[in-house]
């Protein structure tokens, strides 16, 4: 039962926001000691496992390609593509962005998009603009709601697209962890089984955006009428 202390260390360490690497080292040490190993044996076992798991970090080899393309305007090109969507409704705009984000992430381009690069400078202002052109000046609450939805599509798209790409940390971690426990799976098998959830995420979030559009229409059209009556 003492072997479970390592899990407690891991959970508490992450919960109180210590650096995750240090938490992992502490959890490994506690687990190993509780399992009857000496400190040197724990270090050796961890070293062997670290070495056997090198393929988990192999995703780093794609960085020179992505970095090179960014130097030649990959992010800027993606922004130009999104900027072409001017004139769409809020829900349409966000839905198309969600599709873009998921598709790009599925091809390993998780870095295309992001809150600082895409949402704040481009997507959120465009979404607000789309609502303004339809309903006029927006109440602050609506403005915030639209901004929050802009951030949300970026997260949903990235989370439920990236695992379709084989060389992403989470897929390789799954492979690595299972292999350390004596179960071998191929990265491709894992990424294929990420597709059903990706489709479901898109469908569910599409419904959410449709409901957002309806809500905007109801609340804002109401505001306009009241303003007319007064």
């Amino acid at each position, binding site marked *: 039962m003492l072997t479970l202390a*390592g899990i407690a260390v*891991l959970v508490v360490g*992450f*919960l109180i926001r210590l650096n*995750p*690497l*240090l*938490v*992992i*080292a502490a959890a490994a040490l506690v*687990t*190993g000691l509780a*399992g009857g*190993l000496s400190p040197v044996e724990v270090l*050796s076992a*961890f*070293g062997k*496992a*670290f*070495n056997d798991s090198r*393929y*988990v*970090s192999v995703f*780093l*080899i794609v960085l*020179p*390609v*992505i*970095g*090179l*393309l960014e130097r*030649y*305007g*990959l992010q800027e090109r993606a922004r130009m593509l999104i900027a072409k969507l001017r004139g769409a409704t809020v829900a349409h705009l966000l839905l198309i962005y969600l599709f873009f984000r998921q598709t790009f992430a599925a*091809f390993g381009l998780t870095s295309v998009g992001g809150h600082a690069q895409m949402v*704040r400078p481009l997507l959120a202002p465009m979404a607000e603009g789309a609502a303004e052109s339809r309903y006029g000046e927006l109440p602050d609450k609506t403005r915030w*709601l639209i*901004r*929050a939805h802009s*951030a*949300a599509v970026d997260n949903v798209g990235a*989370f*439920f697209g990236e695992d379709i790409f084989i060389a992403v*940390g*989470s897929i390789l*971690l799954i492979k*690595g962890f*299972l292999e*350390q*426990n*004596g179960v071998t799976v*191929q990265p*491709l098998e*894992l990424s*294929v*089984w*990420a597709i*059903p*959830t990706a489709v479901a995420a898109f469908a*569910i979030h599409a419904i959410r955006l449709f409901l957002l559009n309806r809500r905007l229409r109801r609340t804002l059209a109401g505001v306009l009428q009241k303003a007319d009556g007064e």
Partner: protein
Amino acid sequence: MITLEHVYILAGLILAAFAILECLDRSRPRHPGSALFWGLLAGSFLFGSHLSDLLNGILALSLILIGGLGLLAKDAPESRPQSERRRSAERHGNWLFFPALIIPITALLGTLFLKNMTIHGVPLLDAKQITLISLGLGVLVALAFAMPWLRPPVLSPLQEGRRLVDTIGWAAILPQMLAALGAVFALSGVGRAVGTVATAWLPLGQPLFAVIAYCVGMAMFTAIMGNAFAAFPVMTAAIGLPLIVHKFGGDPAIMGAVGMLSGFCGTLATPMAANFNIVPAALLELPDRNGVIKVQIPTAIPLLIVNTALMYVLVFRF
């Protein structure tokens, strides 16, 4: 025969270049911690197979200390100015996406078609690691296409790669460290111990309950820790492997893939995942720091239900 070891040499050389470029960089204050970190990781890829377990352990511990104590560069070196990047984006158009697409396409085609290729009876590629070898191949093909097309300075893939790796920082080795932790868990019998506790306290005698406990547990643990990567070893050692795979004969690939994605539902719903949820609220100047989370929860909950149902329907069928 080309094996995973060759991919490791490629990775090692790239990482060694990051370390050397860091040492040569005069454009910003020196970061010896970064040079040492990427240099050690390069050493692990290049020579790890020839080192003793204890030396590999010391190497891993050094990486943990350098990364964990915050000795890495926090700012990334600049790329080209944005005005130049924009002009380049206009000139090259959507073809800019193409070299990036070469990588997964090569990986996929390689996995499907290069598996059994032989030269004079000797297999060309190690079939067991075909996907990762094809990935390495994809990187080389993408560079072979992009370099003559864009004609950048020769070192710029490495310089720009270093820029990206600096933005990732110590988190780059988090998945590998968690995988290694998995081995210590396995060695110490954590799975068995948790399995005993879990079956004593939860009605996990039915496959359905085990799947629900695993998926919902992944989401909840992720929400508590703010990180699905950290929740995965815990929940998989506790319920995923001992119950879903070993006891009920579920498919480990489906269990792992859908389990991780259940964890991501938790990421959508927690302030602990600050980068995704709290930082954007600040960036977008929302008065409510949980504003983004509140919008995401109504997607996270139905998606978690769908994930649980998907796993239950699929995991025992394949």
